[in-house]
């Protein structure tokens, strides 16, 4: 085999390998979404974050507007502090409400932003003050059982 054909084949091989990598990066991975947009950080304090994880979605009206960048425990207030990376395209009013929701019954948890009506927008590094924690199933069941027991007790007294 002469050198030109050989070089041609190696060129094809390397090019197709790079195309495969690009395919993985752009179509399979989130490279396109992560790099084409600038982001800003928002913070939110929650009593309980449930099963929220770093890289979880942040959604407003069901649309993914950002990702959870960091989660840590504030050692003074013992509240969970969630840092969210939000796409610069989306601005949220100061009285936005942050909740932790679950997608589907067994799905992963995400931060939902319910937009308020304040004319001033949240800026880089600011805190979302109104939050609602994740629903913990055990607590819910516990409340239900206590409620039932109290009802039964009241019924028995009569």
């Amino acid at each position, binding site marked *: 085999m002469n050198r030109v054909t050989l070089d041609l084949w190696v060129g094809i*091989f*390397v090019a197709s*390998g790079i195309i*495969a990598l690009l395919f*993985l990066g752009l179509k399979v991975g*989130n490279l396109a979404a992560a790099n084409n947009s600038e982001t800003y950080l928002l913070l939110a304090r929650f009593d309980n974050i449930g099963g929220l994880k*770093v890289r979880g979605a942040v959604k407003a009206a069901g649309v993914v507007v950002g990702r959870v960048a960091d989660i840590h425990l504030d050692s003074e207030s013992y509240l969970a502090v969630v840092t969210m990376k939000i796409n610069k395209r989306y601005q949220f009013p100061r009285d936005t409400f942050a909740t932790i929701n679950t997608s589907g019954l067994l799905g992963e948890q995400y931060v939902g932003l319910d937009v308020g009506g304040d004319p001033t927008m949240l800026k880089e590094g600011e805190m979302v003050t109104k939050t609602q924690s994740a629903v913990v199933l055990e607590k819910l069941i516990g409340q239900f059982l206590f409620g039932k027991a109290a009802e039964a007790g009241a019924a028995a007294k009569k």
Partner: protein
Amino acid sequence: MREHLINLGHVVSDAVWRVGFASRFFVMLIVYSGTALRRLHLTIREIYFSGVLSLLIIMVSGLFVGMVLGLQGYDTLERYGSSEALGVLVALSLVRELGPVVAALLFASRAGSAITAEIGLMKATEQLSAMEMMAVNPIARVVAPRFWAGVVSMPLLAALFSAMGIFGGYLVGVRLIGVDAGSFWSQMQASVDFREDILNGVIKSVVFGALISWIAVFEGYDAEPTAEGVSGATTRTVVTSSLVILAADFVLTAFMFRGT
């Protein structure tokens, strides 16, 4: 009794000596790599033999592995009513594990064995000694280009394997079974991270490429210069590199994907 102890000692010291020789050989290989990179056409020739000629087997196996993943994954996910997560399952398992590992196993048996046999036969027919007589360093001329060709080819082949696998999963999942194409791709994009998943997969495949090529050229260079010796060395290349790949994969995975 004494004889057994002597045998045991011989086996152990022999193994230690071989590991030492292999390490020294690796250092020599790196030291003399300058020629392989300066005279690039030597390396390009070897990329043709180990990379381009492995394309067919890698791409076809990738396609089938992805198709099987699509079938099996759908079967399991369907039970939990989350068949839309099929894309995530196929993409993550291919990009993180199956792509680099299976492509490396195929590469070891397709290209590694060929490299060992070639170098071993060169040694058996005294071509390597002839080169030394002509003041040509066989490590720089023969060994280093083959090593670097393997290091370059392996990540490209693994990426092709993963891409073909995901395409196969798409064919079976979306086209054949009828999972929604939109959620197949969007859930995949939402949970596959470029740095965390894809780049780690590429790092794995580069490491595997270096390990396979090192073992292959070493076994060839170290082979007994007889027909029997070359055949034994070829078998050892495939067995050793398969085991080393699987062990190295465990170590790399433990470091890369621990927790989180």
